[in-house]
């Protein structure tokens, strides 16, 4: 047992931090400092900077553009990225559909899609959830009927994040209507420019537009865009959902948020001093720091374990990461809301760039309440925290 990084790992961390510090464009740095959301262009630009460095898809196999880093180095890289406040990689591509194509796609699919994912030439979105299939994903009803060299897809997807930007959607569809629930589902790659696709943006409670409904009306998808075998899509979906274990905790990001709260609290007046002098505030901040440190150690246990265990046999404690990670993200946005106090009240729409009006109140305040509202989602999506507890109870505790 030795919980320290090796000197090689520390040197690697310094290299990563150094690169990010030098390479992150100034406008993105400013947005990060003010907690503003990144635009599509920001994410694309930053992904290409990383891709040029060979770091856009570190966890992929080397022959597909990966770096060959072991899990600890991958963690160090991801943590440094999260702590820098730089845009996050588009998960739908690099963490979701990419690994599925790598594991189950054919060579043509790999050659066609993977380089474009790494360079964010294609923006991907996820067509899993449906109005009637949320936590109970397997009850999905979007149907694909074979018609010569095509599948004809009909149905509706919902909560589709960034569908408005998307070039492609990976999609679960029912190809065998007679089969029971998990059976008869296939995994299709759908070009978003195909006729018959309608995207309807849904405004979220923070006033933003991230999620969409996607209506599929006789959408013809070439059979070459089927991943793996027909009717085996549920297995690929499970692989996909189980794949993202460590990034989901977002420990690095929460650390960065806590630093940001500290900086803001040091400026905001409270009585004769600042909010940072407010004892109750400090205790709440410290309580989050303690839980976050515990989660970081739990995360490192998983990461270190991954170096030894074979793929597909995750450490059971990885089930904690989503549950606790989302709680801490929420606690952090809540704490910042309280620091902001009345400054959080004005609603200031965040147009993507080009917003010229001076801010109402302090420049950091505009995103505080929207961020609090928006982050209620993190305990809902990707398997709600109730589903996570079900999983722990059943899969780990055997109840």
């Amino acid at each position, binding site marked *: 047992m030795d919980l320290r990084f090796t000197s090689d790992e520390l040197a690697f961390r310094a290299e990563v931090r150094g690169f990010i510090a030098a390479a992150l464009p100034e406008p993105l740095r400013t947005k990060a400092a003010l907690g503003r959301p990144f635009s599509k262009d920001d994410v694309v630009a930053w992904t290409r900077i990383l891709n040029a460095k060979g770091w856009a898809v570190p966890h992929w196999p080397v022959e597909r553009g990966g770096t060959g880093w072991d899990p600890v180095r991958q963690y160090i890289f991801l943590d440094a990225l999260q702590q820098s406040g730089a845009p996050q990689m588009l998960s739908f591509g690099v963490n979701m559909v990419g690994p599925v194509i790598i594991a189950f796609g054919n060579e043509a699919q790999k050659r066609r899609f993977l380089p474009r994912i790494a360079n964010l030439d294609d923006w991907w979105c996820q067509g899993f959830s449906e109005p009637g299939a949320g936590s109970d994903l397997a009850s999905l009803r979007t149907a694909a009927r074979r018609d010569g060299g095509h599948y004809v897809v009909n149905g509706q997807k919902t909560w589709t994040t960034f569908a408005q930007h998307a070039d492609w959607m990976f999609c679960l569809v029912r190809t065998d209507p007679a089969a029971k629930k998990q059976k008869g589902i296939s995994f299709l790659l759908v070009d978003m420019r195909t006729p018959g696709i309608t995207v309807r943006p849904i*405004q*979220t409670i923070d006033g933003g537009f991230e*999620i969409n409904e996607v209506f599929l009306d006789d959408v013809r998808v070439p059979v070459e865009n089927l991943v793996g075998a027909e009717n085996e899509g549920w297995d690929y979906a499970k692989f996909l959902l189980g794949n993202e274990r460590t990034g989901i905790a977002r420990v690095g990001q929460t650390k960065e948020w806590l630093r940001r709260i500290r900086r803001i609290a040091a400026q905001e007046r409270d009585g*004769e001093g600042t909010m940072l002098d407010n004892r109750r505030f400090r205790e709440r901040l410290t309580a989050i720091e303690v839980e976050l440190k515990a989660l970081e150690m739990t995360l490192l246990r998983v990461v270190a374990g991954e170096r030894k265990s074979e793929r597909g046999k995750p450490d059971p404690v990885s089930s904690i990461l989503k549950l606790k990670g989302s709680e801490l993200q929420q606690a952090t946005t809540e704490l910042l809301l309280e620091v902001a106090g009345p400054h959080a*009240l004005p609603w200031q729409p965040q147009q993507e760039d080009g917003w010229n009006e001076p801010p109402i109140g302090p420049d950091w305040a505009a995103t505080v309440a929207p961020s609090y509202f928006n982050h209620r989602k993190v305990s*809902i999506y990707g398997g709600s*925290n109730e589903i996570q507890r079900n999983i722990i109870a059943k899969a780990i505790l055997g109840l």
Partner: protein
Amino acid sequence: MDFDLSEEQSLFKDVIGRLLAGHYAFAQRDTYARSETGWSREVWSRLAEMGLLALSFDAAHGGSGGGPVETMIAMEEFGRALALEPYLATVVLGAGLLRHCASAEQKSSLLPRVASGGLILAFAHTERQSRYDLHDVACRARRDGGAWILDGEKMVVLHGDSADVLLVTARTAGGRRDRGGIGLFAVDAGADGVTRRGYATQDGRRAAHVALANVRVDAVAALGDPEGALPVVERVVDEAMAALAAEAVGVMLALHAQTVDHLRTRRQFGAAIGSFQALQHRAADMYVAVEQARSMAMLATMMVAESDHLLRHRHIAAAKIQIGRSGRFVGQQAIQLHGGIGMTAECKAGHAFKRLTTIDTLFGDADHHLCRLAASGGLEPD
């Protein structure tokens, strides 16, 4: 010891409830919110016709002699409907300040206009640095002959954009955080030197940033003792917190009902999700939180009339704490139990959640009041 409404009060509640039900369908509310004022002139006129804008006024000023209980009833109904009208700003805060410290002449000139719905008031008090401290006032008022000159900035002035008259606190003497030396002035919103920047608030209402540059007002604009407005401000803010508590209860009752309804109708895994025990228990805990909040809102209502101002403040602050905690739990869990649909602006739940969040923030959140109450000896000091 009686928690029931009188027959008259029940009728009053029904009438308001019916009025709002007729005007506050979800799509209608959205239309009001997107309008320039951010609320409905028509609803406001109907409230005026019902005498609701003059609830607590003397008969001489068009009042119906209602008291804190009637205000509680109205606010709870506003909460259920998520009504957007400037009732808190104009009637509870604005007219409340006038009732407690204006002269007979000032009252006669302003209150009847409020009663008729023709005058919107706003309370311009919070400043960049003041956070929730009512005595922290940097905006200055200096005498100039018989007049006053006001200078300073006021933030998050609720409904300050549609207000006709702003009730502005300003420092007439002493240092920024002195309890003495604060005056209260009725300033015409269109007066020279007054600049307003209106905006929507996070809960879909309206507020304004108000800058006062060399604003000259007559002596008659000073309400009450120009160096002694703080006790009145504290009293009216207590009244506003009691009213907000009642509104929050209305919001929570409707939100909880909506959530339970969702649990009954939404199906996953072949069953209504309300059949899952973990969600049942969450809904039960929400019920407890709502009813505890309701109990405290009632206590706060009773305390509005309490003459011992320490006792009054202590109990109303306690109610604000309970409202803040219950509101946060109920709001967050309502979204969680709604799942994805709860995250959308198309679902009423999110709007209720945001209103509860705002109510917690207004006049000090639960943590703020807990710290202050604890520092002053607690709720039941020896």
